[in-house]
């Protein structure tokens, strides 16, 4: 049986990550909700000077998102894929600016209930160079392949159609 692997971070992480921590005076469910509710996103996501519109937001693992922003510097868009959706604890997604395609940031947000009605949000943004992105895609293909083999194994083990 092939062993399924966790999503791979190809980068040597080192200094190429940005980590933030914020405490919000709101319960964890409400804070998490702000990240996954398409009606709330335009109210906080992006720069103050810009208007953000949700074009696509399919909040589930493998689901795509795309937000369009319009402001003094003109119109642009950001997109990515949700990689882990674990309400109300953790959200992981890729982030790509369409103005510089191929530079992928993997954003992870974790939500910690502080027990007094407040929530600590820790974010981690890991930058990948174009070369690493290509490596990531290649690894993704390997995972995809091993998953296919796994399903084939299961099918065969279950005595499924082999003709």
């Amino acid at each position, binding site marked *: 049986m092939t062993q399924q692997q966790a999503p791979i971070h190809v980068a040597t992480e*080192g*200094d*190429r*990550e*940005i980590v*933030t921590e*914020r405490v*919000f*005076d*709101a319960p964890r*469910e*409400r*804070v998490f*909700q*702000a990240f996954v*509710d398409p009606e*709330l996103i335009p*109210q*906080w*996501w*992006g*720069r*103050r000077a810009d208007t953000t519109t949700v074009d696509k937001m399919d909040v589930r693992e493998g689901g795509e998102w795309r937000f369009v922003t319009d402001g003094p510097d003109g119109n642009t868009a950001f997109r990515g894929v949700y990689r882990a959706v674990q309400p109300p604890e953790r959200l992981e997604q890729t982030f790509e*600016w369409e*103005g*510089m395609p191929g*530079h992928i*940031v993997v954003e992870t947000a974790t939500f910690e209930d502080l027990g007094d009605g407040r929530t600590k*949000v820790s*974010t981690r*943004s890991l*930058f990948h*160079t174009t*070369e690493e992105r290509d490596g990531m895609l290649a690894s993704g293909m390997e995972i995809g392949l091993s998953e296919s083999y796994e399903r084939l194994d299961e099918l065969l083990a279950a005595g499924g159609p082999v003709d």
Partner: protein
Amino acid sequence: MVQYQQQLDQAFGALADPTRRGILERLGRGRATISELAEPFGISLTGLKKHVQVLEDADLVRTEKMGRTRWCSLGPQDLAEVQRWIVGYRLMLDERLDRLGELLERTEGENA
């Protein structure tokens, strides 16, 4: 590739500090002298110069001496596009979290 990674690492190191991010934000609105920059942060000129030096080493800021005044502005025009992108991302991330706090405050008591 090695040089590219060094650039990235320097940019990240430079951005790891809130004062340096503040300097970049300020310079985004136009050039400023060292003392103009030092004032809102309440730090010494020497302390500020050190921050500016780090930003200059990462090509995020350039300085130019005119007479007795040193002017600071955002990095050279040939500054790697990637570095600009990272700076923009960092500033956007901070602003995003500020706005999230405001939203949560504004909607307190409402059902999420």
